[in-house]
């Protein structure tokens, strides 16, 4: 009796992400082919920046050599500190602000970008210790950063982003156009 019901619900059960987050995408970030980012927007407007499944880092069995949050001489995302309810002190990011640089063992280098305007709340330090998280669970434990958009902008930030359908359209057009670069 119960097991049958629950089998079904398991198959259809929405995950935490499905229940609370909306998936948005930015494809070919900064013109670089396939460097797609996925932004998970919570119903409370907080956004989690992650790699989309199509990002080159996640293709072709790549492994990660290093992740660096020091994006310039004067700025390291690891030094980001927010305090209080209003999250004072967090670095304010624009769409193309770099979050980190990832170097793979095959010497390819990728920059991950903010994709939205907002205050940086935290970067994922777990992936520094365990880079595999990024490869195995890019949408959950392998997240890159958490950003809080301004209250007034919480709806408008999605204007520049693609929803899931549009993104999947773009992806399917790629594979039909030409073979993906490795």
């Amino acid at each position, binding site marked *: 009796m*119960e*097991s049958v019901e629950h089998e079904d619900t398991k198959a259809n059960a929405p995950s935490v992400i499905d229940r609370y987050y909306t998936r948005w995408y930015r494809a070919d970030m900064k013109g670089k082919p396939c460097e797609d980012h996925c932004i998970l927007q*919570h119903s409370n*407007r*907080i956004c*989690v920046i992650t790699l989309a499944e199509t990002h080159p880092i996640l293709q072709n069995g790549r492994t990660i050599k290093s992740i660096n949050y020091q994006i310039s001489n004067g700025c390291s995302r690891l030094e980001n500190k927010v305090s209080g309810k209003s999250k004072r002190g967090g670095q304010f990011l624009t769409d193309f602000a770099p979050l980190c640089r990832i170097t793979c063992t095959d010497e390819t280098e990728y920059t991950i970008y903010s994709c939205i305007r907002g205050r940086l709340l935290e970067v*994922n330090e777990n992936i520094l210790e365990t880079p595999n998280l990024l490869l195995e669970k890019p949408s959950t434990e392998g997240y890159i950063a958490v950003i809080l958009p301004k209250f007034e902008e919480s709806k408008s930030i999605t204007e520049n982003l693609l929803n899931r359908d549009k993104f999947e359209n773009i992806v399917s057009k790629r594979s039909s156009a030409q073979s993906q670069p490795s």
Partner: protein
Amino acid sequence: MLPLKEKDKPIIQKLLSAGCCARCVLRFCCVSVQAAYRKQPEVRLMLQTDDYKSKDAAESETSEDPPNKRAKLETSITDVQSEEEAAAVVKSKDGDSRVCVVCLGILQGLCGTTQAIKVSEAVKAGNYEFDTLVLSVSLPAQLCVREVSMVVEKGLVLDKDDVIQVKEAFKWIMQGMVTKELGGIAVVTKVSPFEVSVEFTHPETDADCHFLAATCPDCFKPTKNKQSVFTRMAVVKALEKIPDAKFLKHYPCPPTQPTSSCSPQVQCLHVSVFVAGRYNKFCRSLPQTPWVIDGERRMESSVEELIAAPILSAFRADGFNFSSSGREDVDVRTLGNGRPFAMELLNPHKSRFSKEQMKQLQETINQSSDKIKVRDLQIVTREAMSRMKEGEEEKTKSYTALVWTQKPIQREDISFIDDIKDLTLDQKTPLRVLHRRALAVRQRAIHSMSTRFLDSHHFYLRLKTQAGTYIKEFVHGDFGRTIPNLCQLLKTDTDILELDVEVGESHICKTNIQKSKHIPPTSDSLPHRGRSGAEQDQCPQGCRP
């Protein structure tokens, strides 16, 4: 005979010619006999002191006085019956009744029987339940200015520290009259749960105080709302600061004749009454407080509204403040003995309830909805409200969660969980509340757990944890921001489908809910759910945490 002395005579002359009413004259002469104020005193009698010789003195007196003063004295009447007649005593030669330059009419026409009737009618209209009442008076700020103006002029007042305040005189006059109009209700002077406040306002208040803004600008803070910047406190402060000479330069002494008298407004207020109890929540779609975004209600009703509605109408209160010892999410049920709560009822028109009546009220609440149940409903003191939040940190909580696993499991796979004791978690502020909470890492302890296998992808997890532990995040990991988490322990993705909470017995029952009569929880007041209540009730709508 009025208790006035010979030495007061020249002052009385000055005060009267300055435009003071009879009662204000008494005040400035430091007359502290209450009875003297009750009947409108006669001006003529004021000039008859103990050692005043009627005829010769009268002649010498009148020869000194300016002609209009003499006319005034001669038109005085002996038997004062009403305020109108009393006002006639201070008629100028023009024939207009003059508003007192100091009290602005408050101690003239505004403290007689008409006013007492007005007050008693306001009280009766409110239909309050009370044994005693206390009368409070609020005066416009400019009265301080005018009072100072009389005192600062040398020779007008002898003993400025013994001057009777307008408020005091007003109460001496009104208290007895209000008692009479209310059929004998005691109007006490100090403390009573029921307060009747009379507020006087005057249109020229700002104009009169204006000069203080220029002379003592730092006393006055700019206000954002439309209210006047000349608050009573600010004006008093400025008057203390300003030196006498400067005051005399900017403000006429004696003060100018006002064009109108004050307007009174009567308001009744009963002190707040506090009610406490415990509540159970059986619904998975009910928020604690009303859920409104941008003026639009997102979810129907709320725990506090369901509890408050019958109580508000029974106590005939104007509003309430709801406080509980912790709270649960919209989709979480509260089982067991229930969560303690307390409510402040604002301006209750009815405040006396017997134990029986409270029981009846509790029954009414429980009949009104099947989403919540209330028990141990009782009247408590104000301290109970603040104690509600106390000890929240010390409590232990019991939870039951329905867990889903991605990989198929067998009984043996989850039995190790039962042996885990005092597991310390490092929980970063969950993303779902991060928009309104500070980012921090919280260490919380899970004291013990027990499992009940359901099927290859589900089991029930019972947990006993430290207060403040985020259970949902322990189960699904919250992007790996709660460590350790159940996904790591079981080496599979896990999710939480349902959650129930039982507030720990400890602390709350005995001390927080006061005090004189602790009503022990009755087992018949709740539908029996048992310790594993969650199994029997999975939300039909499939609500998910």
